[in-house]
């Protein structure tokens, strides 16, 4: 490491350490060396490509067409057989992947954004009335039984197609907000935040420019957790008749299958639950690996 020529301050502290590690580069390194994490990510990506194909209209389009016979068995035309009114179970199961991703992404992104903003504001103004109001709101939302809440929202919105999404966002953001609030309370005492105060940076800029970007690792992990939670919740809600109104989902398929299983037809049930299990399992493993990789305490 050579010392460059003109040093005005009389010191040669000029060279950079090329190999100094940041949280992200370490996390990438750890994640790449996590075999199960990588496998899980691969599976999730396969699901994602299928969902994308459905969205682009490449496959899974025949989910509503009534073509086959009632409860037809597996065949070259109907890979997973048909349901009670003769719809293709394969197409319905594939289409449900798109539904699942749609719900997971919408709920994960919106609830994370909401949790991040409100949590950051609460944490930054810790102890003020703003903080009290946000904490009170979180307390109220957390204390309402979840399914009752969803039913109430669905009822209030009069069968609006996205009432399930809204209900989930309204409930899931509180967890993220609590985590972010705690982190922000820690971060706001960091010297770089004090430096911003000393310069005279306005509060909202301090929050969004200096504090929030440093909670990204929490948001990333939290959004993967919410993604999985949303998919699982959708299945339960659809099963209860509170869920997907327009289209098909694994939850609806399983609800349908309750009649069929008694009659000895398992096509709907197996297709929906196996696909859901695969996605939820893979996403959970991916979320765990991500958390391990990003956990600053485990980054030695």
């Amino acid at each position: 490491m050579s010392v460059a020529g003109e040093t005005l301050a009389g010191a040669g502290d000029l060279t950079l350490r090329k190999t100094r590690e940041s949280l992200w580069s370490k996390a990438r390194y750890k994640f790449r060396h996590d075999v199960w994490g990588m496998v899980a990510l691969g599976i999730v990506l396969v699901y994602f490509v299928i969902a994308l194909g459905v969205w682009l209209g490449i496959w899974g389009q025949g989910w509503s067409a009534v073509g086959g016979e009632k409860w037809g068995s597996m065949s070259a035309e109907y890979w997973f057989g048909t349901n009670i009114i003769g719809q293709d179970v394969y197409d319905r199961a594939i289409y449900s992947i798109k539904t699942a991703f749609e719900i997971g992404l919408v709920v994960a992104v919106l609830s994370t954004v909401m949790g991040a903003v409100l949590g950051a504001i609460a944490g930054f103004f810790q102890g003020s009335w703003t903080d009290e109001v946000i904490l009170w709101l979180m307390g109220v939302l957390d204390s309402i039984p979840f399914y009752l809440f969803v039913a109430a929202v669905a009822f209030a919105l009069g069968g609006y197609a996205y009432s399930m999404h809204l209900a989930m966002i309204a409930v899931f953001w509180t967890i993220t907000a609590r985590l972010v609030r705690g982190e922000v309370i820690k971060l706001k005492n960091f010297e770089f935040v004090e430096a911003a105060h000393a310069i005279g940076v306005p509060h909202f800029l301090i929050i969004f420019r200096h504090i929030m970007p440093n909670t990204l690792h929490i948001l990333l992990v939290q959004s993967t957790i919410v993604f999985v939670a949303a998919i699982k919740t959708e299945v339960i809600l659809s099963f209860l008749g509170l869920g997907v109104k327009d289209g098909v989902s694994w939850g609806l398929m399983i609800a349908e299958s309750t009649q069929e299983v008694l009659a000895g037809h398992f096509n709907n049930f197996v297709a929906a639950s196996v696909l859901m299990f695969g996605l939820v399992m893979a996403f959970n493993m991916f979320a765990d690996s991500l958390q391990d990789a990003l956990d600053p305490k485990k980054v030695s």
Partner: protein
Amino acid sequence: MADTTPLLEVRNLTVEFRTEHGIARAVDNISFDVGFGEALGVVGESGCGKSVTALAILGLIPSPPGRIAAGSIKLNGRELVGLPESKLRKIRGSEISMIFQEPMTALNPVFTVGNQMSDVLRRHKGLSRKQAREDAAELLRLVGIPDPKQRLREYPHELSGGMRQRVMIAMAVSCSPKLLIADEPTTALDVTTQAQVLEEINLLREKLGTAVLFITHDLGVIAELCDRAIVMYCGMIVEEAPIEPLYDRPRHPYTEGLLASIPRIRDRKLKRLPTIAGMVPDLLQLPDGCRFADRCEKATGRCQLEIPTLEGARKRKVACFHPVNG
């Protein structure tokens, strides 16, 4: 100081850490001895490998990513490298013990000081509960803690930093170890508390005859406490000498620069503080030759190509092609 067989014999010790950018050799082929009852200082700046050396002696290198790649560590003639963890655990605490920089992390916050101390005494010495408690109080008195019976009932967070460090010292010497490793034990303390703790360590050494391996970045502390010191730079020992000649006539340019740049109370304010230009090279991008060559005013072409070995008479060694004050 027994001259025949040393208490601790470190030979060609090399410790490596795996990182995403390659293997970092934190300690590179170092050898030194600690005599019975001797106080040896290990000085160097952050990242020079001094703490890793201590961890290696205790068998506490986190693995992975770290490992002892080569070398031997003998305590009282017994090889420590390669011993199973169960045996090492027995040696730690009874024959070697350690004081860390931050006592709060080394003490368990949910148990009282008395519980933790008597636990150690009962485990290593097989004392009864009552006897252990009495011994613990006696130890606290030994390290200058007033009202030791009361302190035994307190939790670590109820004690001040200086008190905690004394409790750590009391625990460390409780099984009369032959070697005490102190890793920056006073760095987290205030000057006035540091003076108290250093004095306690000195008194203990006189009373118990424990050898001390004192690791610090503070040359002032070494001067007050040690008989001999080794200076480390980038994982290597660059100089080894008894204290007085080391401070009087340092041979290695790094030691000389380090001594000159310590801020110290001077009779007259200097216009400029002497400095060492540049900075410590990255362990992953070490130069081919002497690791100090790029910061050294005396460096020649040879220094850029060849690594100097630690040479000299028994107690006065230097690793430099162009030693100063010679």
